């Protein structure tokens, strides 16, 4: 029983990180319809910026987190206005291809700049794990989980309650009408991409101290993020959150009780099964995406 509880707790923490990756991408992929293969690279960028701020500039841990988010958002904004805006009327495959190019370029630039050796981000939390009865969790992971939950909640509130959020939803539901109503379409697109990229960078800065930082860390992150987004329904923030948690727990239980070699396969099989029975994802309403 203790083993099961530990697996569940592990799965929750893992799922929380997947959820954080998913919500950024669900905005970009779900709302803007951009197949952003470089999403994982913003995640990596967040981790490296946090490392640079902490280890090189000696800033405080929480400030470094903020710097990472700002850097991710800024680069995302730049990407959108230089690369995606001119291609806005092209097909989805064209924007996908340009983001593949950005992915390759960013990862190899990082390799060139930082070298392939993994870096570790120092954090101020004690290393001794917190023990709750039969299960244990490291303080830094608990912090990451709590902050991720906070960021997710803040994002949801922004989308639902603020003027910016309303403008975003309007733009992606019906661009022309939104434009007629005075919404600055260009600014909204850039803001959305920056928002999503900033969230990815936050995930990187949060997970960097738990894992390690190296140039190819974003590849797996991208793949999981796409799975979570589609599973939860495109553009659906609560869906992405729940999808992320479910995927994390499923993987953890699969690895624990079936086989660690086939760990990722459990996630894939579950995805296939879900889509077989709920073709629009777990939580989306009726439509399919054309």
């Amino acid at each position, binding site marked *: 029983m203790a083993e099961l509880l530990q697996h569940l707790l*592990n799965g929750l923490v*893992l799922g929380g990180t997947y959820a954080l990756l998913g919500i950024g991408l669900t905005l970009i992929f779900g709302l803007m319809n951009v197949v952003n293969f470089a999403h994982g690279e913003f995640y990596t960028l967040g981790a490296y910026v946090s490392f640079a701020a902490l280890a090189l500039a000696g800033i405080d841990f929480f400030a470094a987190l903020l710097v990472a988010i700002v850097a991710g958002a800024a680069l995302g904004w730049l990407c959108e206005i230089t690369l995606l805006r001119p291609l806005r009327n092209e097909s989805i495959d064209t924007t996908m291809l340009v983001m593949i190019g950005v992915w390759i370029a960013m990862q190899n630039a990082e390799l060139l700049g930082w070298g392939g*050796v993994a870096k570790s981000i120092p954090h101020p939390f004690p290393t001794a794990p917190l023990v709750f009865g039969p299960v244990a969790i490291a303080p830094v992971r608990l912090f990451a989980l709590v902050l991720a939950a906070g960021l997710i909640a803040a994002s949801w509130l922004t989308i639902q309650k603020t003027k910016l959020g309303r403008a975003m939803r309007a733009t992606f539901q019906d661009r022309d009408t939104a434009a007629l109503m005075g919404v600055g379409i260009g600014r909204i697109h850039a803001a959305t991409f920056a928002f999503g990229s900033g969230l990815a960078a936050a995930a990187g800065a949060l997970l960097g101290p738990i894992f*390690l930082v190296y140039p*190819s*860390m974003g590849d797996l992150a991208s793949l999981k993020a796409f799975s979570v987004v589609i599973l939860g329904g495109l553009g659906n923030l609560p869906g992405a959150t729940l999808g992320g948690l479910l995927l994390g727990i499923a993987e953890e239980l699969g690895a*624990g009780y079936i086989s660690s*070699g086939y*760990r990722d396969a459990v996630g894939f099989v579950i995805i296939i099964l879900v889509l077989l029975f709920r073709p629009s994802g777990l939580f989306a309403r009726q439509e399919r995406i054309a």
Partner: protein
Amino acid sequence: MGNRSIVLLALVLVALAALAVPGESQSPIKIGVIEPLSGPVAASGNYVRMGAEIARDWLNAKGGIGGRKVDLLIEDNKSDPKEAASAAEKLIVRDKVPAIMGAWGSSMTLAAMPKLEEYGVPMVVETSSAASITKRGNQWIFRISPPSEMEALGLEQYVDKLGVKRVDFLAVNTDWGRGSITAFGDMLKKKGAAVGVAEYMEQSATDMNAQLTKIKATGGDTLFLTTAVEQITLVMKQAQEQRLTRKVVTTGGSSSPTQLIKQAGAAAEGSYHIVFFMPWFPEAMPDGKLAKAFVDEWAKRGHPFEGLTEGFRGHDGIATIAEAIRVAGKDDPKAVREALWNVSLMGVNGPIKFEKDGPAGKESGQSKPSIFVVQIRDGKVALPDFLAKK
């Protein structure tokens, strides 16, 4: 035609032109190097490259080989077997190298091997551990790194002193990890230890909590860990979080204990590591002076200390090839191959001399490298407690 298309056409033409330029063949002696310089194991590949460059510079400082400068032609195999084969083809056909060192990972080496036979060019294998590499009857392969079986034999003498009774395995899900589990499992069973579970982790996995939870439940006393240093760091940290208390032995030589101390901290305390080079005690190596000189030169170039446990492979590989070219008297591939059977030199790891391995009549060369065990104690790398207690 549109302006933009002209730009594109120009790019294509430049690309084709570059391809059409014939390779040079002048005075310097060229040695090919194929390593993973990008992708997930870029760090290791680059360390090997750095070691190779030191060997090249030392050779050239002494006048090169037979008065000719040594040139390293370095190719990136991008951690992809297909690229390893393409790189080998390019080095052999375009650049006409007489010998190659590579290709780090076993599947990359295996992919390049048919090219060696096709064109008749020898390759010195500096890192790959799969037994099959020297057992396939490829007469152009000469390996200086130990296959997992040899590594396990190297540890055999210490098994009783370590006090291993019940063992579990956690390895990266590649040929290296799996081969290690088989080799060490067989060796330990022969010594009377009981083998518990064997768990795997994907090469890019960062969360091993599920596997560790399972391992914790077996009640074993030792955990054998085979993977690269980044994953070892994560496993140790997560094991600490799960309060897993047992002996840890890492195999494969890629554990870079210095990096582990830096990044895993207290979580790495007490762990044992099988390494093939001890940069912390260079004088204890078979050729103490050479080892110390290598460590000093590495530091002088500003390379990270933690890379030494892999970088020496690049040095020894190039030194081996250079010695063979010197003995052969010319940089012709077939002559170099003949010479490789006759070389006997001192590398940073120890003596290098090839013995026959594989099917009769089509043997590959396998050297018997030295194998060492170190331990992390009090936050520093030391000789293992069972040895120091003499």
